[in-house]
């Protein structure tokens, strides 16, 4: 394991504003994969919707920079260290090292199983900003593990709600061969069931030019033989899904991992001060802000909120306060963490990649306490058995 460290120190030179002699420092450590395959040049260039566009540190830094004034005023500061881990074991070791070094909070942009290993290795609060797997919110939930990126289920629910408003109720479901695709298709089916939509046909696809596999690979053959209102494609890889719109037998929209996609963020979102956030991000990082960047950014916002609510810490107090901390994510409403699974409740954006078409929860969907809880596993489902 190679441990890279840089420290981002904010808000100590503030005599005028604080009047306090000692500023408390909230130390956070970001753990990311070393040589992250998601950031290979060819993948980044394709910029598939829902895929990260660059390192998580980019969004975090923007948020901490934004928080400078608030931290100054509260007489507090946040330092961010980062560690890159080449394996699950290395991620676990990095987490333990950070805890030993006095970190108050860990942030992870790691695969689901690594994230869980990190959470199990420490007692600190862990903010998951990179893994969308529902397992981390359900059977593998942990009392000190929080999730800022929307789960797969939240995205599927957002899309299903949108299909309901359009009255596109008959669906052709196409599922890819990726490692996560079976699970993600099951998640899509759960959302489809929850909102009373109907799958008229379900097929597996494969990327191939082999004529012997044309039934699996040819978009025209895959989309023939059924009457549907929309095609829901599940494709973690992204290449097949991108090629599907306008290549269906019937003139029907594609949704899911291409066409219309439900995301935490899109740089073209125009409301609630979002353009300013996207612009600040683009200015600092020379690339558009993606959904993963938003999750990292909101992680930084959460650290700032925590450090300004309880300027003096200590770590134990921060850990306790975190679950109750709310944050302004520039999505029009104050965002809070769900008590039952640690997930940040949030509106999602439906985008075709060009712009933001609509938002979810959609108008008209009702919920007894908070309409944002129509996205993802709700409290009565009791999918996370751990008491918080």
């Amino acid at each position: 394991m190679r441990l890279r460290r840089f420290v981002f120190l904010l808000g100590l030179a503030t005599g005028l504003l604080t009047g306090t002699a000692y500023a408390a420092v909230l130390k956070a450590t970001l753990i990311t994969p070393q040589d992250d395959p998601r950031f290979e040049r060819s993948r980044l260039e394709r910029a598939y919707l829902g895929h990260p566009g660059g390192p998580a540190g980019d969004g975090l830094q923007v948020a901490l920079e934004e928080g400078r004034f608030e931290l100054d005023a509260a007489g507090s500061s946040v330092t961010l260290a980062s560690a890159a881990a080449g394996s699950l074991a290395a991620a676990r070791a990095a987490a333990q090292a950070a805890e030993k070094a006095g970190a108050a909070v860990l942030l992870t942009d790691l695969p689901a199983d690594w994230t869980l290993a990190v959470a199990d290795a420490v007692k600190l609060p862990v903010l998951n900003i990179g893994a969308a797997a529902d397992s981390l919110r359900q059977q593998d939930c942990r009392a000190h593990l929080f999730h800022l990126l929307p789960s797969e289920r939240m995205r599927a629910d957002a899309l299903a709600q949108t299909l309901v408003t359009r009255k596109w109720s008959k669906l052709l479901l196409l599922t890819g061969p990726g490692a996560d695709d079976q699970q993600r298709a099951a998640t899509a089916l759960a959302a489809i069931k929850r909102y009373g939509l109907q799958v008229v046909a379900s097929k597996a696809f494969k990327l191939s030019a082999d004529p012997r596999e044309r039934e699996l690979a040819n978009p025209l053959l895959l989309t023939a033989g059924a009457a549907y209102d929309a095609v829901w494609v599940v494709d973690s890889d992204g290449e097949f899904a991108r090629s599907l719109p306008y290549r269906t037998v019937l003139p029907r929209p594609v949704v899911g991992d291409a066409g219309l996609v439900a995301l935490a963020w899109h740089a073209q979102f125009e409301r609630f001060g979002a353009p300013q956030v996207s612009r600040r991000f683009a200015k600092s990082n020379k690339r558009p802000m993606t959904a993963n960047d938003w999750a990292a950014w909101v992680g930084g916002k959460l650290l700032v909120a925590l450090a300004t609510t309880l300027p003096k810490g200590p770590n134990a107090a921060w850990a306790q306060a975190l679950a109750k901390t709310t944050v302004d994510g520039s999505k029009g409403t104050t965002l809070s963490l769900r008590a039952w699974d640690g997930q940040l409740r949030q509106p999602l954006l439906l985008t075709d990649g060009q712009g933001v078409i609509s938002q979810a929860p959609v108008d008209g969907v009702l919920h007894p306490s908070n309409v944002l809880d129509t996205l993802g596993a709700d409290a009565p489902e009791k999918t996370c058995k751990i008491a918080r």
Partner: protein
Amino acid sequence: MIRSNAVAWALCSLALLAGTAQAQGLAYVSSEKDDALTVIDLATLAVKGTIATCKRGRHLQLTPDRKLLVACTDSNVADLIDPASGKSLRRIPLGDEPEAFDLSPDGKTIYVSNEDTGEASFIDLASGKKLKSVKVGGEPEGVKLSADGKTLYVTSEVAGLVHVIDTASAKLVKNIKAGKRPRRMAFSADGRELWVTNELDASVSIISTSSHEVVATLKFEVKGARAEDITPVGIQITRDGKRAFVALGRANHVAFVDVAARKVTNLVLVGKRAWNVTLDKAEARLYVVNGLSDDVTVVDVAGAKALKSIPVGRVPYGLVVVE
């Protein structure tokens, strides 16, 4: 005897006139997507026309010599418009991404929030020169100058602070923690209180202008709306300081507030995302700009009732009444 009767009669008819007289004058509405102001005839409550202006017009205000000044976020200028002719007189550079501003009592200095750079800038209106600038928290929005011109208040949406700036030295004196996303401000009639709307807290923070502390918080509730849908932005207080009017954003209502009691007395249903509010001179009508339904709702203050909604430009922002 006869004379005093005549006076009484004259007074009486004057009062009658004032009570029944049709509103005179015009209202000007900025819109973020039209690069134009919409002009409303207050007598007929109909759109009279539009005036082309700079790009993405937002805050607008009258200068002491009764000219219209509108800040354009995408053009980085203010457009100075003569309402008599409907023509632009000249444009004044305001720095990067100007959003809201206030004017010095003599009308010579513009105090403006620069959204992207996180600054409050002091601009000389005559020369267009930037006199000074003060670094503030992210996405500064509301700008309000004390009546004596000595103290400037600027809200920062990102930092959740109200910055107190001494205008003489252009120094930041204090940061006051308000609620989440503080937006717009209004002074009480005696200037002792500053009311600040908190968009993401469904509240107004009431700040003492002597101690610069939050002395009270007024929470809004709307039957049938959840707290997170109550997003207050625009605010105005009557000249006598008795009532405040607060636009409640996505709750689609405007709240009438008894200032002394700090209590909501009425809620009036208006358009979508009620954004900014403006009273006419008689304080008989309240004009509410609705950002998401592209219209302005005219509210009868005495009856606490919406009279009419007038379609205006796309994403309307602010309104000024010229009577």
